[in-house]
């Protein structure tokens, strides 16, 4: 059941990424919903499942887009693994910390993505990273912060209401 829920979540993220996210795009920058879902999965399930999820979602993106087959799969597998790995060590419960880690994850993903895409043209990769990577990371982290805030556990909400 949990697997089905994750599959639906991933499919939903993939569809939204290619369609309705145009509506919230600022210029050509839109949040990376797939990475946000991957972050959520890694947070709950750890690196093993996050690696598989990252690979599958990345592969689906590769198939759907006309880019290099395997590029998204590779980047998202590594990011999924890294995020799952972080869960054991540096993961903290505050929303700001999660948003910061998500920001780092998107930047790391885009570094990999652009450097492989434009290899050996390093300057073009850096330009793409500055032009699209960093704004996307910021936008995704901002969206992530809102999502984490809305999805915070009931106990946390209750303690926030009780505290003066």
């Amino acid at each position, binding site marked *: 059941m949990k697997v089905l829920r994750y599959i639906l979540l991933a499919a939903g993220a993939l569809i939204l990424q290619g*369609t309705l996210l145009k509506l919230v795009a600022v210029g050509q920058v839109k949040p990376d919903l797939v990475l946000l879902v991957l972050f959520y999965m890694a947070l709950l399930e750890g690196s093993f499942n996050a690696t598989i999820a990252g690979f599958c979602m990345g592969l689906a993106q590769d198939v759907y887009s006309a880019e290099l087959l395997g590029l998204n*799969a590779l980047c998202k597998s590594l990011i999924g693994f890294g995020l799952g790995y972080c869960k054991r060590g540096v993961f903290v419960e505050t929303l700001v910390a999660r948003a910061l880690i998500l920001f780092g994850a998107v930047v790391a993903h885009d570094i990999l993505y652009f450097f492989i895409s434009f290899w050996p043209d390093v300057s073009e990769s850096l330009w793409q990273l500055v032009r699209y990577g960093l704004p996307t990371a910021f936008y995704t982290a901002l969206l992530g912060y809102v999502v984490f805030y809305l999805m915070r556990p009931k106990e946390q909400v209750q303690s926030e209401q009780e505290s003066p």
Partner: protein
Amino acid sequence: MARFTFWTDKSRQYIVLGCAFIISTVLLSMGSSQKLFLMKGLTITVLAPVQRGISLANQFWDVHTQNRRLKRLITELSLENQLLREAQLQNKRLRQLLDFRERKEWTSMLLTEVITMEPSREMNTITIGSGRLQQIEQYMPVVTAQGLVGRVSMPSENTSLVQLIKDRNCPVPAMIRRNRVSGILVYDNDFYLKNVLSRMDVVEGDTVISSGLGEQFPKGLLLGRVSKVYERSERQLFHKIEVEPAVDFNSLEEVFVIMKRSSEMREEER
């Protein structure tokens, strides 16, 4: 065995990562070879339902965007169409005027625009966009292709005031084209042909033209058509004849000012 299981549990994430890395790298290294296309084709077939969903959502969005774009386009085209229709009507009017000028004997006519219209009960005037600088003088007749409009009453530098024949103070010497019966066309809330003796033969539908008497208006300009001949008693000396004007005074846009008759020009040349 337990040790092996522990190792496997611990390391399975690395194994998965390694597999993902290898598969991805292999896929990347395939480049644009035939295998790549085959695999892509296969995956697309498997993921076709998902893709169809994505494409449907995209189409929905595209239809929405396209709808808005088309609505804007329709408005723009509609406005353009209105302008073109207006241009077409203007073209038709100007052609009629050109044809009129070629048909008539007055060679020196100035085509000018009507700038303002001030029709009222007391004073029926229009302002035209030509004046003394264009050699417009007082009392010059003003016409359209439909017929006589009036005369220049007050020329200024670049504009002129035209007194319409639809003014009480602008009577026009007229006659019936059919039998040359003379009278005077006068406006008194309606147009009437006055001073026509009651024994003269006038019937509804007769064409009324300017007679040229008094030399203010050239002879032969169309004024209108007899719309009603009132019944006369034996004691009445004159007919009471109502005339429907040839010119629609509410839709004047361009008019001709007759500056000189061709006969006058010929005399001057001599």
